[in-house]
């Protein structure tokens, strides 16, 4: 099975990673590997994870996102999830997953603006 590629580019000091509509497990695993690889190579402030094409977010995908955000955090960056679809947001809530310490934005553009804003303390939330 050919899985669609993950797109990883550096934009305005952040890493922009875009996920395909229904990534299989190996593609999801690649999200983590490629993010960490790119972060070690480039000087970036954080990660914007573009989920606007994603149609399904199961527990494995969610856990991988949470872990990736945690690793990015340990390396001093923050993660912003952009463009989650209503159907995915609702299902994720009903499934009961957590996406870890991440912020969210409606669009990639908003996320990039948010990432570019002056560092402000993120209130600790469960």
């Amino acid at each position, binding site marked *: *099975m050919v899985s669609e590629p993950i797109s990883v580019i550096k934009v305005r000091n952040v890493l922009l990673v875009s996920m395909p509509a229904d990534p*299989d497990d190996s593609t999801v695993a690649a999200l983590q590997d490629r993010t960490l690889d790119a972060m070690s190579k480039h000087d970036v402030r954080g990660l914007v994870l573009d989920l606007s094409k994603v*149609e*399904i977010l*199961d527990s494995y995908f969610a856990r991988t996102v949470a872990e990736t955000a945690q690793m990015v955090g340990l390396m001093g960056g923050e993660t912003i999830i952009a463009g989650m679809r209503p159907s995915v947001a*609702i*299902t994720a809530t009903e*499934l*009961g997953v957590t996406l870890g310490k991440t912020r969210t934005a409606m669009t990639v553009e908003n996320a990039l603006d948010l990432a570019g804003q002056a560092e402000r303390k993120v209130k600790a939330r469960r």
Partner: protein
Amino acid sequence: MNEGSQGEVKIQTEADIAVARRAVRDVASKIGFGVTEIARIVTAASELGRNVHKYAGSGVMRWNALSNGTSSGLELRFEDQGPGIADVNEALREGHTTGGGLGMGLPGAKRLMDEMEIASEVGKGTTVTVRKWRRR
């Protein structure tokens, strides 16, 4: 891909979980479920398919288009010859985790679908059946 009102997907590798998802999305779409309903059904299928792969190594997902005179629906059945579930009620309790932090398979799928039945025997295997009906 399967045409008609029933079909099956063998779950033998991790990649098959995605195959199962695609099959379920196709059928759910043909039956006429809405976008959010499809997301629920496919996610439930992913969780249950993942359980099969994780606990039993391999198994099969069978699907069935349903109609009860007033509504149409979809039934998914996940069968494996794995270790079985010792305490089904325990496994269904929200937040139950058995290693790996991915323990939301059963409670999650139950939440996302309308009906769920579990038949399991330790040492023999497990069959999880879920159904969803289109909202009238």
